[in-house]
C-alpha cells in the first residue's frame, strides 16, 4: 500500500513542480533543463520505490502514475474551471508586431527569446507578426500579418 501512497504524493509533487517551473522551461529543454528533468526523475523514482526492486512495485507505482494521469486529464476535460489549475492558458505575447511586455514578464521571457523563436520559424522580424501566442504546452505559435 505504501508504494501507492508514495506514488500519489510524488504525482502531486510533479504537478506542483511543473506548474512552478513554468511552461517555457519544460518545452524549451535547454541542456540544463534536460539534465534537471532527468535528475528530478531519478529523485522521484527513489522516493517512490525506495528499496523496492520488485516487479510488483513497478506495477503498483507505474499503475498509480498512469491512473492519476488519466484521472487528471479526464477532470480537466470535464471541469472547465479546473483547467487553469492543471494547464496554463494561452497568452498573447505579440499583437500586431508589438510585444506585450507585461505578458512576457509574467512568463519570465525576454523580447530576444521571442525573436529567436520567430527566427526558428523563418520569421525574420516581429514586425511581420500579427499574433504570437505562448501556448499551453510552452511553444510559441506565430501568425503572420
Amino acid at each position, binding site marked *: 500500500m*505504501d508504494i501507492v501512497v*508514495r506514488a500519489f504524493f510524488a504525482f502531486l509533487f510533479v504537478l*506542483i*513542480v511543473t*506548474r*512552478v517551473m*513554468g511552461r517555457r522551461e519544460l518545452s524549451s529543454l535547454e541542456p540544463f533543463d534536460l539534465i534537471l528533468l532527468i535528475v528530478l526523475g531519478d529523485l522521484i523514482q527513489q522516493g517512490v520505490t*525506495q*528499496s*523496492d526492486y520488485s516487479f510488483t512495485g513497478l506495477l503498483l507505482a507505474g499503475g498509480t502514475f498512469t491512473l492519476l494521469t488519466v484521472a487528471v486529464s479526464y477532470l480537466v476535460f470535464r471541469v472547465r474551471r479546473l483547467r*487553469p*489549475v492543471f494547464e*496554463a*492558458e*494561452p*497568452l*498573447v505575447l505579440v*499583437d500586431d508586431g508589438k510585444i*506585450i511586455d507585461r*505578458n512576457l514578464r*509574467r512568463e519570465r521571457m525576454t523580447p530576444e527569446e521571442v525573436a529567436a523563436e520567430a527566427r526558428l520559424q523563418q520569421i525574420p522580424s516581429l514586425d511581420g507578426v*500579427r*499574433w504570437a*501566442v505562448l501556448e499551453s504546452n510552452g511553444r510559441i505559435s506565430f*501568425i503572420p500579418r
Partner: protein
Amino acid sequence: MSDVPDHLDLARHRDDPETAEIVARRALFLLLTAFAVAAILGAFGQRPQNSVAAADRAELDVSAPSRVRGGLLFQARFTVEARGAIENATLVLARGWMESMQINTIEPSPTEEASRDGDLALSFGPLAAGDRLVLYMQFQVDPTNVGHRSADVGLYDGAELLARVDRTLTVFP
C-alpha cells in the same frame, strides 16, 4: 471579420490574463521554498541532538538524531560517565530504537543482551568511578517505518535505575 485566432479571448489571453494562475504558481513556489528552508533549519532531521541526564553515580549523554527519514543511515552515541562504582552498567533502549530499524553495528559489543519489558537491555559489566563508556550504534531506517516512537534510554546498575533520558524519534516518509 475579426482576425483574432479561434478560441483566443483577447480580454482573457492578452489584456487581463488569469491572475489566479500566477498567484497559485507563486504560492506553490513559496511552499517549495518553505520546505527547503525548514529542511535547512533541521525540521526534517538527520542532525544529531544531545540529551543529558545526570545523577549522583553517573551521567548519561545520548547523541542521536531525533528526526530521521526512511532509508537514512545514522549514528547514535551513548556516553556513560561513572561518578561512582557501577557493578553492571546496563543501557536499556526503548522499542523505538529497534522497531523497523536495521541495526548495522553495536560497538563495543555488550557482554549480555536481553529483553527487559520489551525494551532492549545491553549490559557492559562493571565501571569504576571516573570510567567512561562510549557505545556507538549505527542504524538504517526501514522505508516503511513512519511516525513517532519512544526512544527513551535508561542507565541501570543491574536492575537499579541511575539515570534516564526521555526522547522521541520521528521518522518522516
